[in-house]
């Protein structure tokens, strides 16, 4: 049985094999102290399976899960606490609000075995904390997306869980709304101090929330630490793409200039040669480099007098507006993706088939495995 009051670090080591046992879906070990820990990775990396295992909705093949002193699962000693008594709160991507119950009934759903008075007080407290008290009598179909998210959070937290799992709960909300909800969540957690695992594949959310991040790919932990350390120097291609490096290119090492701390590489089969930070490689090796589309500069004339070492000539293949940006695809022998502002598109008179020059700073080029 789980004790009443707890707060502790989540320690998990989980291996989940496919039914044929020939391969695994998940093989991870990590710790998450109280506070927000981001679980970051491309879709299909195993994040949702991991959350299902922590919540008790899926059973790991082997492993152990504990929060502080409370063991929730241990394959070695046949412990498998059922989801009903794990005291793990889980906000699904779909939120799964009960459509036939009001906001208040949804929030009160998990509160039982306490007096009517306590129940009312706790519901009231959390409705206030998440700013949904005025919606108490509405059905989920009658409130906005942000309000639904707040209701789902309140419903999970009112039961005083010892762990909160959030599976991309804030996708589809605008940044301002998202920040406001996250602030309310943080404020609530100052008093409770439980570990919160927050799954996302949005780089923006990581930057907005992140104290710690655990990067997952192909069912394995591929990095953990501060967001900057984990995601700005990605060492795996898929993760690089997921972390917002739109350009991941294969290149051949041409020569190493150890004194300058750089090396020259040739991109793909093209004639493009660029300078990138020196890495542990030898001449002739194939390497992968990752470059953010936002780090690629475009010029309508050949630029001169630049500190940036890499200037590539190319032609615009396509221009697509996306939100407040424009995505340009440029053929320089290899195809680059660059983000430019609509203002820049007008000022440079960018158009499909127009000749342009790409400018890349050496240190915007990251090497990945």
């Amino acid at each position: 049985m789980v004790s009443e009051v707890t707060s502790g670090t989540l320690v998990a080591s989980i291996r989940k094999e496919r039914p044929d046992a020939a391969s695994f879906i998940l093989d991870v070990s990590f710790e998450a102290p109280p506070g927000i820990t981001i679980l970051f990775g491309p879709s299909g990396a195993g994040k949702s399976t991991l959350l299902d295992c922590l919540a008790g909705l899926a059973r790991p093949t082997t492993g152990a899960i504990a929060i502080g002193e409370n063991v929730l699962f241990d394959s070695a000693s046949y412990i498998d606490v059922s989801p009903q008594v794990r005291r793990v709160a889980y906000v699904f991507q779909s939120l799964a609000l009960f459509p036939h119950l009001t906001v208040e009934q949804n929030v009160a759903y998990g509160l039982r075995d306490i007096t009517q008075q306590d129940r009312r007080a706790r519901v009231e407290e959390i409705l206030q904390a998440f700013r949904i008290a005025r919606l108490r009598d509405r059905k989920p179909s009658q409130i906005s997306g942000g309000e639904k998210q707040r209701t789902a959070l309140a419903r999970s937290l009112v039961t005083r869980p010892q762990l909160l799992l959030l599976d991309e709960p804030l996708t589809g909300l605008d940044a301002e709304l998202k920040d406001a909800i996250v602030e309310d969540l943080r404020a609530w957690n100052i008093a409770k101090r439980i570990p919160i695992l927050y799954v996302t594949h949005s780089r923006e959310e990581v930057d907005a929330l992140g104290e710690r991040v655990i990067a997952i790919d192909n069912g394995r932990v591929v990095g953990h630490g501060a967001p900057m350390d984990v995601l700005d120097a990605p060492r795996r291609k898929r993760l690089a793409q997921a972390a917002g490096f739109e350009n991941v290119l294969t290149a051949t090492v041409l020569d190493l200039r150890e004194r300058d701390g750089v090396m020259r590489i040739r991109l793909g089969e093209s004639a493009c040669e660029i300078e990138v930070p020196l890495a542990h490689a030898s001449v002739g090796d194939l390497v992968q480099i990752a470059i953010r589309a936002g780090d690629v500069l475009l010029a309508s004339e050949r630029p001169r007098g630049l500190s940036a070492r890499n200037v590539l000539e190319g032609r615009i293949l396509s221009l697509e507006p996306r939100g407040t940006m424009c995505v340009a695809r440029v053929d320089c022998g290899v195809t680059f993706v660059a983000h430019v502002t609509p203002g820049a598109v007008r000022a440079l008179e960018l158009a499909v088939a127009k000749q342009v020059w790409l400018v890349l700073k050496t240190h915007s080029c990251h090497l990945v495995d």
Partner: protein
Amino acid sequence: MNSLSLSFELAGCVAAILLLIGMPVAYWLAFSNWRGKFLLESVVALPLVLPPTVLGFYALLAMGPRGPLGKLWIALFGHGLAFTFTGLVLASVVYSFPFAVQPLMVSFEAVDRRLLDASALLGAGKWRTFRRIILPLSLPGLVTALVLSFAHTLGEFGVVLMVGGNLAGVTRTVSIDIYDRVQSLEYVAANQLALLLLAIAFAVLCLVYAVNRRVWAPAWTRWSAK
């Protein structure tokens, strides 16, 4: 007792019983992971394809003084089952079983699994989840099951004829009555009853389809929010 009220009584009893036993069966069919589930599904659907006379024949054998059910009944209550109202109810329950179980099963299955997960994570056991989440969300299925088993029992003929015979006030249901009157060339009386059954059948189907198209959904939402 006239044949119409007898039919209504029979259909009412059968629908109520079916709702009670249909729910656990439908729940099990909807949520069990057992691989042999198709066996039970087939048994439940059997009355759909079986001629009513076949079903009625075996029901009569089982309920007869030498049948297992008949013997049991005589031992318990001192009289047989065949040609009684109770016997008719029992046979009709079997005959209309799929009409109750199918809509219930379909609507249980249609409930988003994540809602059930959410309920479990909020500490609710299976019974509470069923009562507070599955059942209210399956209300259209519940109404459909109730109405269809009622209507189907109301219109049955073959099974009643085999098991119930034709005893006025005891087992002479309205469909048998119509048949009787046609046999004795009372076409006007037969037509009155037939027309009534037709109207009832149409009204019942309207009800089922309207519930499933959620024609009254806004009103229901207002009512249940109170």
